């Protein structure tokens, strides 16, 4: 019984992660935002092993409100850095359920992202951690942390969602 339930949860989690990537790659950002809880945080740390987003700067640390501002800004016709918008492929791998306790789960994965915009292709690699929560609407993302392998590098502007 336990094994079957585990397999079912694991499959559900994988489908959510793939669905998230699929929405991002098709630019369906409002639907993507709909996968997040109202109190969600979206975090791309600046430093390797960064402990905290409040006393150290982050490439992105958005609460739900800033995330909504960001998604809205992304879709404005004069969001210059996204005109034209980047095209992306998010490749999710190595999905591991790190913790599954009651309604919450902590899930690790890896991300390889190929981004193309205006005659330039960039490749990003990251270790990702999702905190998922069971809600009335289904499994939702309560927190996402994306540790880029090159977060401490000298970076040109980052204009896609990871």
């Amino acid at each position: 019984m336990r094994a079957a339930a585990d397999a079912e949860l694991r499959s559900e989690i994988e489908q959510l992660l793939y669905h998230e990537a699929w929405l991002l790659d098709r630019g369906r950002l409002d639907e993507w935002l709909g996968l997040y809880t109202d109190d969600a945080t979206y975090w791309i740390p600046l430093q390797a092993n960064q402990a905290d987003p409040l006393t150290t700067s982050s490439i992105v640390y958005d609460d739900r409100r800033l995330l909504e501002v960001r998604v809205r800004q992304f879709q404005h016709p004069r969001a210059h850095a996204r005109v034209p918008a980047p095209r992306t492929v998010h490749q999710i791998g190595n999905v591991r359920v790190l913790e599954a306790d009651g309604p919450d789960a902590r899930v690790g994965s890896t991300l390889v992202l190929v981004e193309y915009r205006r005659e330039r292709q960039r490749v990003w690699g990251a270790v990702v951690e999702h905190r998922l929560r069971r809600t009335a609407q289904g499994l939702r993302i309560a927190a996402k942390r994306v540790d880029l392998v090159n977060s401490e590098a000298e970076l040109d502007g980052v204009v896609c969602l990871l």
Partner: protein
Amino acid sequence: MNVQSIKGLVQADRVHRAVYTDPQLFELELDRIFGRAWLVLGHESQVAHPGDFFTTRMGREPIIVTRHTDGSVRVLVNRCAHRGARVCEAADGTTAEFVCAYHGWTYGTDGRLAGLPLPEGYARPAAQSIDGGLARVPRVDAYRGFLFASLAAHGPTLAEFLGPLRASFDDFVERAPEGEVEVAGGVFKHAYRGNWKLVLENHNDTVHPVFVHASSIWAARREPTAEGAYSEIGVRQMLQNGAPWEVWENTGLWVAGHGHSWMADYHDDSRLVAALAHPAFAEYRAALERRLGREGAARVLGELRWNSIVYPNCSFMSQFRQLRIVHPIAVDRTVVYAYSFRLKGAPERMFRDTVAFSNVVNGTASPVLTDDLEVYERTQEGLGARGSDWVFLGRGQGGDLPDRDGTLRGRTGTSEVHIRNQLAAWLEYMTAES
């Protein structure tokens, strides 16, 4: 390129595009501007204790800034005096010595050669042949804890160089209840495919925000205020970029010798930072009053400076505790390091607001900054065109007024006087004999 032809590139209200695109001019800039001017390197708190160090660049020179055992700050060229390899790879840290990976030559935190293998193999002591150790940058100085160095042995003193811009550094430090600030919270390193001058010309450009940042202004306007929320300071900053023309026109914009400028009388604390109503701000004000008294604190908090530019390599926000160092990499490639500071003695919430603010103003993925970077790149590409060779900088020209301490004040806050002033300094450096 000779002096006469360089002189023709900068005219009263226009500049030739070659100033932004010519690789030979860029090499000359590294010699004549970055090789002569006082450059901001960082802050003393980055080398608080003996043995502390950080690495940086001065133009094309790789640099180590160290705190020696005698307590002094040393600025060394990060290049082994033996065969030329860099001797320090870390961005920062604490060490007793620097050991070259190639042949083990070892240097103290003052750069002096402390050891080498097989010393008896040299006819005279090796240290004599290499002038003692790592090359030292000839002039090092500090103002209110901010570290400066110059690759030129002679030139204006730091006080002469900064002139009235010193008041912006004073403002930075005086805001701290304990009268000291420290670097904290990590460093953003953002890069763009454009000339180094573009970022310095943008920071006091008050006409650009409403156009460049149109999308983030629009997005933020749809958010109701959320007093006390983490996100509030970022949303407010996006909104402020959409201030009406009246605000920008009435903003104070001053320029001084050597290309410096600053913008003031713009924001106030009721619109930004911990809001005046926030308990943390009351606590902060009380802490400031303990050191300065009620009037002194009011005077410090009444100083409303926005960007101050130290030409040619730094732009900082004294009121918001941000400092950016501009590194020219190639004629069309620039890297900017952005630091946050903690006001010593201020409530922790003030620092958290600084961090949240930095994410929006200097963050590599900021909805604000990324649009600036995009426009620098478009400008660089446009300037590659031969159809029209001139960049027009006439806004406010003829109406800028002399003000106190030898400054010039822009006719209005939207004058391009700060750019004309930078280019005048550029011309002076580029055509000076030595």
